[in-house]
């Protein structure tokens, strides 16, 4: 997938800005509870574990594991080249936090469950979408 291809993009809000714009600094950022240290995704005003409201954005390593994937062949959107890989990636710091994403930088046929990946951001207007590529 090229850097400039069409994508739908999120509407950035004050609640999601840390996530959608962290890529400007090359950082994958989640809200984290200052009390119980739980990572929270999607963003919420309250920690779902301990109900603390003391939450702050914190970067993670950007490394993770493919929990599952699908190779999409259907041209739902004629302006997007197929096939491409949609995956759920579990982040290393807290595997219960998953991101739906695309796996890029490899042949779609090479993607597998358990594959180690790292984040790679794609800039689209004012957002930086976290995609993932194979670890070197």
């Amino acid at each position, binding site marked *: 997938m090229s850097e400039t291809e069409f*994508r*739908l993009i*999120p509407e950035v809000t004050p609640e*999601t800005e840390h996530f959608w714009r962290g890529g400007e600094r090359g950082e994958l950022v989640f809200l984290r509870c200052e009390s119980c240290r739980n990572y929270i995704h999607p963003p919420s005003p309250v920690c779902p574990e301990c109900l603390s409201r003391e939450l702050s954005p914190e970067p993670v390593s950007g490394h993770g594991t493919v929990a*599952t994937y699908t190779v999409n*062949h*259907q041209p*739902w959107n004629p302006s997007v080249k197929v096939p491409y890989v*949609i995956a759920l990636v579990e982040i290393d710091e807290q595997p219960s936090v998953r991101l739906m994403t695309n796996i890029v930088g490899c042949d779609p046929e090479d993607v597998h*469950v358990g594959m180690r990946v790292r984040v790679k951001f794609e800039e689209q207007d004012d957002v930086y979408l976290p995609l993932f590529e194979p670890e070197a």
Partner: protein
Amino acid sequence: MESIERRASISGIGQSAIGRRLNRSDLDLTIEAALEAIADAGLTRDEIDGIASYPGGGGALPPGFSGPGTPEVQDALRLKVGWHMGGLEGPAQLAPVINACLAVAAGLANHVLVYRTVTEATAQGSGRRGGMGLGAPDRRVRGIFQWMLPYHAYSAANWVALYAQRHMHEFGTTREQLGAIAINARRNAGGNPKAIFREPLTMDDYLNARMITTPFGLYDCDVPCDGSTAVIVSRVEHAGGSNAPVKVNAVGTAIRGRPTWDQWDDLTTMAMRDAAAQMWSRTDLKPADVEVAELYDGFSWLTLAWLEALGFAAKGEGGPFVEGGKRIAIDGELPLNTSGGQLSAGRLHGFGLLHEACVQLRGLGGERQAGAPKVAVVAAGGGPIAGCLLLTR
């Protein structure tokens, strides 16, 4: 504890013409189904005092997905109702049926018209099945879809495929096993004059069809259609019309995991796990008592996942359960999706399955009749929505 859904029955069923491009309005189809259901229940429209539907009218839903809202149908038939609802949130497409049971049990209504209408085939015209969100003028997505659509995951096919793939990885489920569900549906559709696709489907046809999103090929995906299905939910005391009412034995509505596609706790099952467990907790009947199963098949793997969730197969063993298709055939130990399901009969969105369960319990299935079943299960939904019904005669 009394399961108060047993104070309700399904006293009438009706279904409009079903087709690929009927070019009739959703209200027109709905009235056809509703009047048939009302007559089947031995009632007149003056006796209908409740109305409910999924997903209700309006909203930013794909073209042809919503039928008419309940106010339009109420007004068209000049109904005077003591209870009404329409909406998208709840235990999947069966939510209005379950809610109607509770409304009847609570005494808010005696006879509720419940319907689901789709005109997706006409709305899509001769074009491809569209992706979600692509019509947004500013290409911005909001709410839960912001976590999925930016990655070109435009369809439920993609979202369900992620789960199917993980199920294959953990349990060795195969495409041939998913194919057994599609082939069974097509064989059963041969006995359903209203089914969209009735010509036989072979395993070669299935495996050689074009890939949509791995592991789903074309025949793993249901077929958009136009049509309306209606049922009348009545107080159980109502004697019904010439066909006896079908009794509601138990309902399942629970969702105990995180209610999203990406954060759900177990990537090999869905909300069906919780709805099914709750349904069995409300009855003395067991999976072994069920003689016909009408399980949601928006995508083939969802049916397999429902088979596991409902306890017909152990976790991870849905694949071997359906393999070869004998067990799930009309004359097998658990006849499955006897009218062809959504994969072959058309995407009536859960209500086609509900209608067929009633047909089977009344013994009116004709050449597709699966013996003389006394207990049937109906399940609808995939992902973070699920609802199920245990019905008896």
